[in-house]
């Protein structure tokens, strides 16, 4: 390896004419001077676009989250309501005691036709 490195040194198998790199650098200089202001304003536009897109996504996400939270509260309210109504309803024996004989007869004697999906 050392022998090869000594032989090859830092030479490359390809080369360029001495004027080539100088003329390329001059071309790069002129192009960069013309292009840089355009690129900068383009970058600012892209930044604005990215920022406004992010803001829009955030707003949508916030709206959806808020809506879900509110509807979640409403749902849990309904559940609480039904649970409360069961807890607060009178014991079955009291309900039966308060019913008249006819009403009790209606409850006790029924035909299967009275049950819609029987």
């Amino acid at each position, binding site marked *: *390896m050392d022998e*090869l490195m000594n*032989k*090859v040194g*830092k*030479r*490359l*198998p*390809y*080369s*360029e004419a001495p004027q080539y*790199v100088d003329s*390329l*650098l001059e*071309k*790069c*200089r002129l*192009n*960069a*001077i013309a*292009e*840089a202001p355009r*690129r*900068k304003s383009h*970058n600012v536009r892209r930044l604005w676009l990215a920022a406004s897109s992010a803001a829009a996504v955030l707003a949508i996400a916030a709206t959806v989250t808020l809506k879900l939270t509110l509807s979640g509260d409403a749902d849990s309210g309904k559940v609480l309501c039904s649970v409360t109504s069961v807890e607060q309803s009178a014991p079955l024996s009291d309900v039966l005691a308060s019913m008249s004989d006819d009403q009790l007869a209606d409850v006790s004697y029924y035909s299967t036709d009275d049950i819609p999906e029987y």
Partner: protein
Amino acid sequence: MTDDKNLIARLKQAEHRNEAFGTLLKTYGDRLYWHIRRIVVSHDDAEDVMQETAVKILTSIDGYRGESSLLTWLFRIATNEALQHLRRECHVFQSLDALGETLAERVAAAADVDADRATVLFQQAIAKLPTQQRLAFNMRYYDEMPYEEMAVVTGKTVGSLKTNYHLAVEKIKRYVKENSI
């Protein structure tokens, strides 16, 4: 270093920017070009990357805070642009390392008519290295850059760069031994 500070100060002033940019390219342009050329190999690709690097330098100079040397900062931009250029040639999900064979072929295609076989073989061995090893070898061997500066350019640690350089040397040795006539 003082010259660099003066150059950076002038680059940051709108009225001196264009003239200072010319000085910057005159001072470092040649090294940047050959650094890019060793990464992308082909003449046309190196020209495209150099153009893009020059634009990036000019648009980013206001953000340069002087935490690293000017040359290191320029090398970082050039390296990123060159790797970005190579990435465009990769297929989706393909690693840059997979381009080794293509780059080795380009070395042979770009070689001067009178280039000797040892020089071509040596360059092909470098082209076939994984990207990080290739970068470490090129910056250490050709640009004689200290590991600390190489770490700033590549964003890798000094330890991993030393390992990469060592591995690169071993692989080049093996490749040259296996392919020598």
